């Protein structure tokens, strides 16, 4: 915001003294040579920005905008722009029209009674202040450190080669794989198994695993009565199947002697 008490300024800037006469009496920093204007224009975001610039350069209170001289100077700039840069002119001309309208309304004598009538400058002031607020906010935002511009996210490589990332498998994936096998009709009837046979085959694996550890097992060691009759039966079927596939040897020295189970021994070739 403008501070009229800023030391380098006259106590209360009277626009009349600044604008009393044309350009020659305008303080030096207000005068923009036409050549420089073109460059300067790039720096303006639009008519509000230019207007703010003019006001700020003259250290005028936004709340107390001197419409006549401001409008005149604005129009001079717009005229310069119009000749130099037609694209920009439209938006600036709208603002010029607005300024002229305000100026003319202020020149009209007003009935003193109407207190609540709004100051014709009010809307412009509101817009100028809102724009200035956002303009400053934008400068502050721009001054904040941004990731990718001023600061950089740390990104340490996750070493994956040493330990392969392992896929998850769900039982339904197995079913899907089986389905695809069936679908390709590679399967012979020979390979179809039912649920019960699966249980036999599971026990076949278990028995083989046990035999791998202890080499020889007594027949009764393979049975755990606490698991119930079905398991006992399945285990027995598994033993029979293993024997049939000659994966195990079953030996008994004499009747009622212990029965021993071992991995089928194969003569070295």
């Amino acid at each position, binding site marked *: *915001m*403008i501070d*009229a008490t800023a030391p380098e300024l006259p106590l209360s800037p009277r626009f009349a003294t600044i604008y009393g006469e044309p350009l020659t009496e305008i303080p030096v920093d207000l005068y923009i040579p036409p050549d420089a204007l073109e460059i300067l224009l790039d720096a303006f975001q639009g008519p509000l920005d230019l207007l703010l610039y003019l006001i700020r350069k003259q*250290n005028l209170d936004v709340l*107390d905008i001197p419409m006549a001289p401001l409008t005149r100077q604005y129009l001079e700039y717009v005229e310069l722009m119009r000749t130099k840069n037609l694209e920009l002119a439209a938006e600036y001309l709208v603002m010029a029209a607005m300024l002229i309208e305000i100026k003319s309304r202020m020149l009209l004598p007003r009935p003193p009674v109407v207190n609540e009538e709004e100051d014709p400058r009010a809307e412009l002031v509101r817009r100028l202040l809102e724009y200035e*607020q956002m303009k400053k906010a934008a400068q502050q935002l721009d001054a904040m450190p941004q*990731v990718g511009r001023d600061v950089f996210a740390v990104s340490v490589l*996750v070493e994956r080669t040493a330990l392969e990332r392992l896929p998850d498998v769900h039982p339904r994936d197995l079913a899907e794989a089986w389905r695809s096998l069936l679908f390709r009709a590679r399967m012979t009837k020979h390979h179809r198994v039912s649920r019960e046979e699966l249980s036999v085959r599971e026990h076949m694996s278990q028995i083989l695993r046990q035999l791998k550890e202890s080499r020889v097992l007594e027949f009764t060691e393979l049975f755990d009565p606490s698991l119930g009759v079905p398991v006992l039966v399945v285990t027995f079927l598994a033993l029979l199947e293993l024997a049939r596939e000659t994966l195990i040897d079953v030996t008994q020295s004499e009747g009622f002697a212990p029965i021993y189970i071992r991995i089928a021994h194969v003569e070295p070739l």
Partner: protein
Amino acid sequence: MPNPAEVKRIIEAALLSSQEPLSLADLKRLFEEEIGPDTLRRLLDELREAWSERAVELVNTASGWRFQTKPEFQPFVERLNPDKRPRYSRAVMETLSIIAYRQPVTRGDVEDIRGVAVSAQIIQALESRGWIDVVGNRDTPGRPALYATTKSFLDDLGLLSLQELPPLEEIARTLQLEPATAQPASNESANEPAAPSASASQ
């Protein structure tokens, strides 16, 4: 709960190797054991403290925690990658700040405030950066899109929430505009930030 030093080691590695900020919920998932949010937060604070002397810091943003280099480190990066990182134009930054402070807003709202047309490219630049997105449509003719800032915008500015944006300067005075002519523009504005030339410098 596992050994806190070990937990910190793991959190540190997770944060260092993650592409995105990690929330407390993300960090909890690192561990099979239950780790309470208070414990986690305390360990994160300890970690932040442990890193405070280095050129990389641990920050807490809208989406979670992340390690990033400190701003002072920027000149060194530039020496490493001499291609300058572009700054956004004033038009983009003004549009962004209007969306940030006034959200949700339409492109028309932005144009009203800026007093100038806002090109589609400006909106697009901010959208493709992931800083703004469409959160709805205003129920007016044409149903214009309403824009708001994203979490990623807050993350990239190192903010926890919009509350942490720099506060806007007061504009309350506009409402008390005195009728007509010259006020003695005296010192009622003493508590106003005295920056007469601040915006005149461009």
